[in-house]
């Protein structure tokens, strides 16, 4: 995307500067419209944009496991056997996580997930608008009062991932962060069984 953008920028600036270098005869209006407006204005920009949009949609679907049904308001995300469901509730300024697999357990500012399995995070808030964002696992999704938004995340390897709030939510915004602990299968089972925090 960056290379393409640079090429277009170079093209536009090149044409611009060439206009100052050129000292030929003035071209007529009809020919100018054909070349500049139809050719470059329409055909060129349309084809670049069409390619980009199609690419974006396919990339968007690939990022969303479950046949592209990844981001949907409320329920309705397709749940396979393998999918783990957790919920994230934001408030000024902390995150509270709960787990379908371990109903009695709640963790603050630390989200536990299994590595290598898709996780659906049901995101909501008790006060203002927040946004759930773990940059290395997925894009962001807003926490909106009265709504539950579901985001599919997946960690390929066990480890600790940094999570952030990404919508301004008052003076505590900067420090409103959390961590995601991705467990291997064994330690996830232990977590679900309640052996460790």
């Amino acid at each position, binding site marked *: *995307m960056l290379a393409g*953008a640079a090429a*277009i*920028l170079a093209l*536009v*600036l090149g*044409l611009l500067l060439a206009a*100052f270098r*050129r000292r030929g005869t003035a*071209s007529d*209006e009809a020919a*100018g*419209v054909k*070349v*500049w*407006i139809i050719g*470059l*204005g*329409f055909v*060129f*920009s*349309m084809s670049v*944009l069409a390619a*980009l*949009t199609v*690419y*974006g*949609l396919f*990339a*968007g*679907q690939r*990022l969303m496991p479950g046949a592209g*049904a990844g*981001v*949907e*308001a409320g329920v309705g995300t397709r749940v396979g056997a393998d999918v783990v469901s957790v919920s994230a509730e934001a408030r*000024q300024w902390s995150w509270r996580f709960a787990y379908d697999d371990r109903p009695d357990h709640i963790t603050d500012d630390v989200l536990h997930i299994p590595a290598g399995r898709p996780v659906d995070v049901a995101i909501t808030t008790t*006060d*203002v*608008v927040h*946004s759930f964002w773990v*940059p290395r696992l*997925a*894009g*962001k*999704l*807003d926490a*909106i*009062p*009265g*709504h539950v*938004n579901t985001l599919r995340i997946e960690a390929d390897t066990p480890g600790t991932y940094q999570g952030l709030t*990404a*919508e*301004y*939510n*008052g*003076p505590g*915004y*900067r420090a409103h962060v959390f961590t995601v602990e991705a467990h291997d299968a064994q330690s996830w089972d232990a977590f679900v069984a309640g052996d460790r925090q």
Partner: protein
Amino acid sequence: MTALRRHRKLSAIWSSEPGFRGWFSSVNHSDLGRMFLVTAFFFFLVGGVLAMLIRAQLATPHSAFADAGAFAQFFTMHGTIMMFLFAIPTFEGLAIYLLPKMLGTRDLAFPRLTAYGYWCYAFGGSMLLVALVFGIAPDGGWFMYPPLTGPLHSPGINTDFWLIGITFVEISAICAAVELCVSILKYRAPGMSLDKMPIFAWYALVTALMILTGFPPLILGSVLLELERAFGLPFFQADLGGDSLLWQHLFWLFGHPEVYIIFLPAAGVISTIIPVMARTTLLGYGWIVASAVALAFLSFGLWVHHMFTTGIPLMGLAFFSAASTLVAVPTGVQVFAWIGTLWKGRPEMHLPMLHIFGFFFTFVIGGLTGVMVAVVPFDWQAHDTAFITAHLHYVLFGGFVFPILAGIYYWLPLVSGRKRFFRLGEVAFALIFLGFHGTFLAMHWVGLMGQRRRIETYDAETGWGAINLISSISSFIMAIGLAMVLIDVLIHAFVAVRGGRNPWKAGTLEWASMSPPPAYNFASLPHVTSRDAFHGDPGLANRLAKGEGYLGDPQSARRETLTVDIATGDPDFMVIYPGNTRLPILMAAVTGLFFLSILIKLYWLTPLALAGVAALALVWVWRLGARTDAGPQDAGRGVTLALAGETEKSPGWWGSVFLLVANATFFGSLLFGYAFLWTVAPGWPPQDWLAPSLVELGIGGAAALTSALAMRLAIRGNRHRARPLPGLAFALTATLVTAVTFAMLLSRVPPPDGHAYAATLFVLGSYALCHALIAGLMLAFAIARARRGYTSPARQAEFHIVSLWTDYLAVIATLSLLAAHLPGFLA
């Protein structure tokens, strides 16, 4: 009459009061355009200082310069001031100053409205300045998302300053937009058909129409949020049937068109300057007009792209993503048409052209990062990072500030009548250009590294320190460059040597006026036969000064101009303008009192202030008109025209049409909000509906329709028998019955602070009641005018204006009643 005597005579008629007293009573578009621009640049300085404070804070990790609270005020006010108090007023000022000159006429359609708009802007802006000085400025981010800005999470007065101050300022945007629409369509030199209009006028027309349809959703959102904050009407509270997403929709319904409202005038400046600098004509005039119109339409389909991360279904995202990239096509057409124009001619590198070069470089990068952000998966990562901040500054600084700087240097010789002397401008450009790119390229970079926007500081371990320092230092270089532009302009305005007319050899009519232009613009109005009216006809200026055009014979002490047919440009009516008056500033002050009373919760003052506004409005319109028929008037060059007051579609009628367009958008947004809450918000349906009543529905609807029909009766009665009074009295009665129906409806609405449904009904009913009262007031006014002899079968313009408002009342009253009663019937 010699040219000099004509000049003296016209100056005596048209001049504002001398000295500073003239500032308060002037209704002249050149005066007010300059006042708009100076005030807007003052706010640009204030916003710039805030930007410097932000960059100073972010220059190093763990800076102790500002705490989170102060920092929130900095970034909120920086965005707010730049958007609402700099960019939009700069467009208004530029258009108000230039358009009558470019269109070859003497003033805008409604001179007193120009002044009223300016004072609303000045007073509303001052409110926000006061908040800033006392450290109680808005702090919820410039797009003010509730519930963070709601009564529970922002109990202080900070947010109220934003909602009330900005709504006050938006009155001026709506006034200017109405006025520009009517002026561009009707107030042109004879012969200037639509296809011979200067390209800037087309851009201004499209922009003004966008303001009329883009601003009402935001005004509605502000009204609703203020009602929630002041009286607990829960429009945005999820537990009481409201939804904070409603604000996001209303805000971005305004916010995305806003980007193009800012860009299009700048594109108009570019389209004007480039052909002059290239010594040729604009390539593809019709194509450019078409792409400006296409841009306007597309931009209203884009608001959701600011909400990609709010959990909208993927199909919806696909649609809005495609629309977001599609908007790049008309932009691309314009950019390539401009480059094609340069190729067509022989471009010269003067200072305005340097800034246009700055525009191309910056805006194309901004557009390309914009296309990246329109790709949904990318946006999920970049959203709310410094990458977005950098992108929007490339678009706004590249797409607005550079073109405006080009425009300043291009039109400065016209405004001042002087020649640039020192070469300060070139150095300033270099500093601005380098400083800007240093600042914001760096910001793209830290954004991709994960720095969120709006954080007040960051840890040293993030590794963002060096990049932020580069960004901050560059921003100060840019600030020095902008300060040099200011010094350059001041030197130019006060001490530079006098220059000749039309230094750029431009073809548009503003250069056919004197430099600096006199209060009346043209001693006589030209007859336009080509798009570049002044180009092949250098003797035009002298002939106009000698009075060889239209209206070149100032016999009475009237400020005269003429209007034309919209499409063909044939002259149709003569207009007599009102003279200097302090009424606009007084009316703006009383309007300000209304807003102030809500801000500081002095509610006993609110109805008094409203009554004051209504009384002044009546004085305002009462002063126009005459008690005898004037008959056909000599307009010069063998043309005789009727006065505009003796026609059906007077300027006031056109003004009402455009005001009602904005008003209908407001009403439509309200209905959208109602439907949105009903279908999307949690906590619906409400516990109890309004008890439906066929009687109320029937009487209210019938009365509103009757008032519209009776008004037609009055017009017929006036035309055929000079007896408008029976119809008017009938219409007034029907209007009052409508008002009473809505008052009853309001008394039956469930407690509006209990559920968003009741709150919405309350607003809907109040809106209709308010319009019934407005129509009633207008009818009472028309009756008084008819009784005092201000109307006749010829002097009928006022009846047609009132008829528009009774028609509008009939439509909105019926829709409001249906919206209020139907759910109860269905339940």
